[in-house]
């Protein structure tokens, strides 16, 4: 066992973790643990943009952004948090620019912005250009820029260290345990505070835009330690994933004018969202695609539709919709614009589909994308441990792993990047303040014992079921039964199946017994985390008998504000679970029906 001491340890080096590290390290001594090299974090894949009401191209206000966020989240959003996020976003995007982030530019040299799903001018109800972008690699640029700044500020990184356990003693966080992948050593980090920024867990599903590394380790550990997870039933399916592979085609494609086309050649979104059409909110579109496919209107009757961004198609619909440039001329797009604004998307299509998006439509299907729920926190990243908003001293979280909740039942495109930087910063600052006020708590005896026990159990078996087989079954059942559409029957079935898989997991077998870079062992350990999250996701989904945002129940198709305008909080108690509820914070915006 190797011992380290830092005022604060940040787990995860994506956008949220790096932002927190940057701010916390200005005040206190921090160490950043990440199971991937920081630049490999999934923030780097975010494509379309980061939302902020800069108003560089047309009138915009952060209040409009807040309203869009709340409406997009189907009113399950905590409105105070959303207001903070949308207000702070403006300053933070400028701050990112000052750090060197190479945004695309308007002709007069300002940050360029583009329209994105669900972002509107609240007066005219028309799409507004709010997503600040750097081609279709905004997340890549954010990740790079933040990592660069961390290097400049000499932040201490522990690259390829996997977080395994949180150490809590005398009612507060005293550190954590991590596994050094290269050597197989356990490291105990003695700290006053631990900050979770481990991202999402899309790998629970079969077709996902998420990285292999997104397995929800931190929330699973929190759950096992008896701390709650919030709103786990809300998981976003992004409407446009590459058919079968799940690789994401950004909403930016539709922002540039791309349209969805069914097997009959219809632009079907005109029926489901007459105003915003293809730029309606994600849950609305995913559901529409699913309904089209279910009605046999997929391409050739199969389970996918087309996303069409060919200039002739786009320009035809621009005319049909009467789309205009700011100077009043009709809006137009050319093949060169597509190459220029969406170079990576064009590259994905050519590489993985052999389809040239300028000449052919792209086959797409909804793909598991974003966790709205997660570790509950307040607006300063403090982890909340019960329905009365009590905090666990020294525990912080931000980014996709956290649930503030600014995304409610459905996250608006571009809002995740906003969430990362806004709450990463706020959390980092709050944590530094906390560290300056308290002393180190005593470590518990044998702090690494529990982790060692888990690993030894996995390593000791000489035969058993392979982790891969269990994982595959879990992903299949989650896709089929806990996907875009859910029913009581599907969910109950899923629960049974997952419990059965958890049972099999007791027997999982790890072939690699070595210490050096043992990814076989880590994958098996991660599977344990995923199974726990799969179980609570199905459980919470079964529990919520309404349809709201990303959670669509065929058997309860209506939103039910009377009974369900509240957050789910799920707790593990022994082998059972308890579900509690937390009210939604409402400031100015009363729930209304959502029409796009």
């Amino acid at each position, binding site marked *: 066992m190797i011992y380290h001491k830092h005022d604060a340890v940040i787990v995860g080096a994506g956008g949220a973790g790096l932002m927190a590290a940057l701010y916390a390290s200005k005040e206190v001594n921090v160490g950043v643990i990440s199971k991937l090299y920081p630049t490999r974090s999934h923030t780097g894949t975010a494509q379309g943009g980061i939302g902020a009401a800069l108003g560089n191209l047309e009138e915009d206000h952060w209040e409009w952004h807040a309203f869009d966020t709340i409406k997009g989240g189907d009113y399950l959003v905590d409105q105070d948090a959303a207001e903070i996020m949308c207000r702070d976003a403006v300053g933070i995007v400028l701050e990112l620019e000052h750090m060197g982030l190479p945004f695309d530019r308007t002709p007069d040299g300002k940050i360029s912005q583009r329209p994105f799903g669900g972002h509107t001018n609240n007066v005219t109800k028309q799409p507004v250009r709010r997503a600040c972008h750097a081609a279709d690699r905004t997340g890549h640029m954010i990740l790079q820029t933040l990592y660069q700044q961390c290097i400049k500020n000499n932040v201490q990184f522990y690259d390829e260290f996997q977080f395994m356990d949180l150490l809590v003693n005398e009612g507060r966080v005293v550190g954590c345990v991590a596994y050094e992948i290269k050597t197989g050593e356990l490291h105990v980090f003695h700290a006053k505070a631990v900050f979770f920024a481990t991202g999402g867990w899309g790998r629970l599903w079969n077709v996902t835009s998420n990285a292999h590394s997104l397995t929800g380790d931190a929330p699973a550990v929190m759950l096992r330690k008896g701390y709650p997870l919030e709103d786990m039933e809300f998981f976003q399916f992004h409407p446009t994933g590459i058919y079968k592979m799940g690789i994401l085609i950004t909403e930016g494609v539709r922002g540039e004018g791309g349209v969805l086309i069914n097997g009959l050649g219809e632009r079907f979104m005109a029926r489901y969202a007459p105003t915003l059409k293809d730029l309606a909110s994600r849950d609305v579109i995913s559901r529409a695609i699913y309904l089209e496919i279910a009605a046999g209107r997929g391409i050739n009757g199969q389970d996918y539709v087309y996303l069409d961004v060919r200039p002739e198609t786009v320009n035809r619909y621009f005319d049909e919709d009467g789309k205009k440039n700011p100077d009043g001329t009709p809006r137009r797009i050319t093949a060169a614009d597509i190459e220029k604004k969406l170079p990576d998307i064009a590259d994905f299509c050519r590489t993985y589909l052999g389809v040239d998006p300028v000449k052919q439509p792209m086959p797409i299907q909804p793909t598991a994308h974003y966790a709205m729920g997660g570790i509950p926190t307040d607006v300063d990243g403090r982890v909340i441990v019960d329905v009365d908003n009590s905090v666990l001293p020294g525990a912080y979280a931000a980014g996709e792993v956290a649930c503030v909740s600014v995304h409610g039942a459905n996250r608006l495109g571009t809002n995740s990047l906003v969430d990362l930087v806004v709450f990463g910063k706020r959390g980092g600052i709050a944590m530094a303040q906390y560290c300056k006020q308290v002393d180190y708590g005593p470590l518990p005896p044998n702090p690494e014992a529990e982790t060692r026990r888990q690993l030894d159990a996995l390593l000791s078996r000489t035969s058993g079921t392979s982790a891969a087989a269990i994982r595959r079954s879990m992903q299949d059942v989650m896709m089929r039964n806990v996907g875009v559409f859910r029913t009581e029957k599907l969910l109950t079935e899923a629960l049974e199946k997952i419990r059965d898989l958890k049972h099999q997991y007791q027997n999982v077998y790890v072939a690699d017994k070595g210490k*050096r870079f043992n990814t076989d062992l880590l994958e098996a350990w991660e599977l344990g985390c995923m199974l726990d999250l799969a179980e609570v996701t199905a459980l919470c989904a079964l529990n919520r008998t309404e349809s709201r945002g990303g959670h669509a129940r065929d058997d309860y198709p209506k939103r039910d504000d009377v009974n369900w305008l509240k957050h789910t909080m799920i707790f593990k108690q022994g082998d059972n679970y308890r579900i509690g509820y937390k009210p939604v914070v409402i400031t100015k915006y009363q729930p209304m029906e959502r029409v796009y």
Partner: protein
Amino acid sequence: MRVTLRIKRFNPEKDEKPWWGEYEVDVEPNDQLLDALHKVKWYQDGTLTLRRSCAHGICGSDAMVVNGRNRLACKVLMKDLGKKVTVEPIRGLPVIKDLVVDMEPFFAKYRAIKPYLINNDPPPEGRERLQSPADRERFDDTTKCILCACCTTSCPSFWANGDYVGPAAIVQAHRFIFDSRDQATAERLDIMNDMMGVWRCRTVFNCVECCPREINITKAIGDVKKAILEGGVR
């Protein structure tokens, strides 16, 4: 379709020297090589070790030598590789295990070139620093780099001499040298003007041929060489 993967295996914990493992897998033509490697790891030999994460060519984890050439395993499809595929770790960095190499020397070089914007003027209040689209365009290509190390580990100058700062680090330096907002041009050019800096580049183009982000690395290096010769950025 059935293919044979020949994978160079080496676990210093127990192997004296590297050996070739042969594995037969059934794949779809459109499968990535990464999928095929996963099939081996998940269903045949759990000890096979590699790095990967995003699975679509964006995170830069899985650079390896595929049929003799540097590729990202997730960005090459089986149908383009033939029936017999050889896979080796990238060259010029110490092997930790199988396809995993020690990336630290690579990142150390990245850190050595001061990979961050240096601008000591206070930023303008309440707005961005302005930059014309033309100025932004000058360094666009080099902002795409994902630090996968394909380029550096395909460069004969780097294999020969590990002190060579390498194409990836030069690409990163280029990204700042040609950013109109950066003020440390002279300092950066001094770094690049080192004996183990840009002058070690022999315009081999291996880097360009294998960069998964299709960055024109040799041109970026050429831009930097020229800037040094001309005593600054024009």
